[in-house]
């Protein structure tokens, strides 16, 4: 029997962050599943315009970008979403739309994707009502998020299901781990330099990513590691730029820290290859898709131990989780990695284990299982 699935998102292609990357892979998987089963799939995005679509993820006829027009999205919801069998809301901020769909079409199965801090908090009345009364399933990107959903919103265990994110199917998986020469030149690195790498959004409004701790650690470690460099990548706002640069000056690491700003996606893998260690001691990652991307390039990672990152490193199998407030622990862990770098064989092993856990094929199978469970329920 033909089924109609709609994925509603805020933004999928016009910006790049963890949520957007997760949504692209989810859309690609759903597109594949529905094609195989001759079902119908649509991805609707409120803030993207139709020109933003990245055609490799799904065909243009399955995508609608509303270019910030809530009215257009609302109208389309009223006319089409009410005929869907499954509607997946990729962000709690779309709760009102979900609520309307469910009221008009009670038979529709309504899922919410729960990422991280957007749901680990007190929610508005509409969002609470949506979660408790109208949402059929909450897809949690990590076990940590599932626990938080239970703690904050007292959602029952059977309503929440964990579906870990998968590696973007279009990311290059390197078969050699040489440091790219063009990046060595760009950052004026010498062979033998040790490179710590962080990729995250640097926003003055979000003070939980923990790169300040890494800057401080680099300050302490530099006497013992003369060729130590810290590449801190990601778009930053003016206030955060000033704050970070002040900290860099205060820690006397102006020669060690390289702020790159926005990183072009086609150079992402090369940056993972350039680095010796990926560090993001964040406190509030829902999952941390960047960790599995780094691991898929054979790059060891250090993450925080009090958020969803632990799912990405399989509770310590693939990386090390630390108490991010404990600077000494961070320094000690960095030293351990830098003094005993991974062999090529170890990097290959890390890469293949990461891919075995977080590949799109398994993700798709789990997704299909969820869809079938619901459809037959």
């Amino acid at each position, binding site marked *: 029997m033909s089924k109609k699935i709609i994925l509603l998102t805020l933004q999928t292609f*016009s*910006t790049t962050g963890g949520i957007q990357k997760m949504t692209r892979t989810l859309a690609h998987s759903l597109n594949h599943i529905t094609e195989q089963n001759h079902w119908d799939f649509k991805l609707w995005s409120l803030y993207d315009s139709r*020109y933003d679509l990245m055609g490799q993820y799904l065909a243009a006829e399955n995508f609608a970008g509303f270019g910030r027009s809530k009215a257009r999205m609302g109208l389309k919801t009223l006319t089409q979403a009410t005929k869907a069998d499954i509607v997946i809301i990729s962000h709690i901020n779309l709760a009102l739309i979900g609520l309307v769909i469910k009221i008009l079409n009670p038979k529709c199965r309504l899922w919410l994707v729960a990422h991280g801090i957007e749901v680990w908090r007190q929610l508005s009345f509409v969002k609470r009502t949506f979660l408790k009364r109208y949402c059929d399933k909450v897809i949690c990107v990590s076990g940590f998020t599932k626990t938080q959903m239970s703690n904050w919103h007292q959602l029952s265990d059977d309503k929440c299901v964990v579906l870990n994110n998968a590696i973007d199917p279009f990311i290059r998986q390197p078969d050699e781990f040489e440091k790219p020469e*063009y990046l060595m*030149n*760009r*950052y*004026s690195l010498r062979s033998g330099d040790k490179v710590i790498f962080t990729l995250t959004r640097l926003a003055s409004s979000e003070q939980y990513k923990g790169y300040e701790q890494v800057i401080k650690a680099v300050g302490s470690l530099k006497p013992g590691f003369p060729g130590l460099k810290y590449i801190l990548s990601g778009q930053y706002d003016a206030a955060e730029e000033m704050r970070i640069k002040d900290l860099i000056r205060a820690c006397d690491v102006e020669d060690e820290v390289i702020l*790159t700003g*926005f990183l072009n996606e086609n150079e992402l893998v090369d940056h993972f290859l350039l680095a010796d260690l990926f560090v993001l001691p964040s406190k509030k990652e829902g999952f941390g898709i960047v960790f599995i991307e780094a691991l898929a390039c054979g790059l060891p990672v250090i993450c925080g131990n009090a958020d969803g990152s632990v799912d990405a490193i399989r509770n310590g199998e693939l990386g090390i989780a630390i108490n991010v407030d404990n600077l000494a622990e961070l320094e000690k862990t960095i030293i351990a990695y830098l003094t005993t770098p991974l062999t090529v064989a170890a990097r290959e092993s890390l890469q293949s284990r990461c891919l075995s856990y977080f590949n799109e094929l398994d993700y798709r199978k789990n997704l299909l299982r969820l869809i079938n469970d619901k459809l037959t329920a």
Partner: protein
Amino acid sequence: MCLTLQHGGPDDEGIFSDDRAGLVFGHRRLAIIDLSAKGHQPMADVNQKAWITFNGEIYNYAELKQQLLLLGAKFYSDTDTEVIIQAYLHWGMASFSKFRGIFAFALYDIEKALTYLVRDSSGVKPLYYHIDDGQLSFASEVKALKSAGIAVEPDSNWRVRFLAYGHIPEPYTTQKNVFSLPKGEFLCWNHKKQNCEIHSYHVITREKKITDTAEAREAVRSALTCAVKRQLIADAPIGVFLSGGIDSSLITLLANQHKRAQLKTISIFFNEKAYDERAFQNMILKEIEGEKYAHLVRQDDFNEFLPQIITDMDMPTTDGINTWFISKYAHEDGLKAVLSGIGADELFGGYPSFRRMKMLKKMHKIRPITFRIAKYFASDRFKKISFLAYNHPTADYLLLRGHYTPADIAGILDTDLRNVENILFNNKQLPYISNYDEADAAWFETNMYMQNQLLRDTDVMGMSHALEVRVPFLDEDFKRLAENIALEVRFNAHQPKKLLIDSFADILPRAIWDRSKMGFTFPLQQWMREHPDINNETLYKGKRAQSIVKDFKQNTMHWSKIFALYQIRMHE
């Protein structure tokens, strides 16, 4: 291919081939440095480890050569070409960012079986490439790839882009699968794997923002003086284009400080009084010592040479006629290289767009859908407001600089509006514009208008007369300095290019800068209206095009728009 590019390199010709790699390099030489036969290209190092075919100039080649000699490099010529090869052999890919100049070259590393295509950081010299079926081809002009039978199929979207922009924006061309290599980037072709990677060779440096006005003025003065001096390097005759505006006047005065009696100036004047800049040109000319050439361009010249100009432009464009004429005269006056004032408007806020950005920001606060109605406006000027409905950086640029709106283009080409929109706005290379400040305006002007229109047209029109046009304002060090000056010091809301003017207040006459902006403008509105074919509506296909020609005849349409239609007609 070499024959097609003969006009830009009349002095010599050369071919290199390597059957093992299945590689052939061709070259046409315009000799400016080391005029002897030692400058023959394609060229190899003394040990024949690498081969190069190179177009352009490396201004700092003498400094690099000194450094390379200390490292043990051996040279057999005095050319900058050989310095590129040795720099690569000693520093690898890191050499690319050491070059200060205007260049596009292909370098074949025999041992590694790699070929690099490299383009200068300001994108002054063009480099087009085509990849098909494991084969890479490249050239300085698109027509070389066309005439060789490599890229004969047109890109079906070029007309839409051309009518919107007034040129074909990079990386696109008129031919399918022929792209322009982005400025400051290199393409590395692996002969064994038959694939390529493209990356920027820019080196990240840490520099403190200049926030003090006096410090900025001093730095601008010193860096521009240095850039002009550096770019005057030549073993062949060199001159300056003088229009009478701020930028070319400044370049002329600075060049005169170094070249004195050897500096030749080329200027143009018209019988049409409104366009006659001789009073301003003379103000500068009386300050300088060298030979001064002034040429009259008339309607008859325009009519006579237009077919040749259109042939020489390589790809359709609505500008460049001015550069074609002045390059022709520079060539006839015996010059092989000239300095031009391009780049100052973009760096220091010389265009109206710098002031219009604030308005654009305000308009973006209104719901985009509101602006859809503007496409029904009769006035050509107000019709462009419909670009705001797209809420897209390309649309913002086209609102500031574009020619026809998507609705008009669909009408002219008799195609679907949605098709036009998809072609124009499926461009993922533009950054997200959010501040709408002077820095964003400078980004648009530098990376879009100057890159795609001014620089491309200037190079192709100059080379059509075997003339190299150099651009001191785009010297890497000067440009980096300008971009490192805090916005509030670099731009002034009331006076365009105030910082540049103040930096040279002692040498630049007040009358040159204290007047309305003229630009390097020809009386083309009048000339095209009197041209026997351009304004003959019966020659154009379709009602929309014919009605535009009628508007033009009534003088309610800008000449550049009719010139775009005229070129579309010629390709039908």
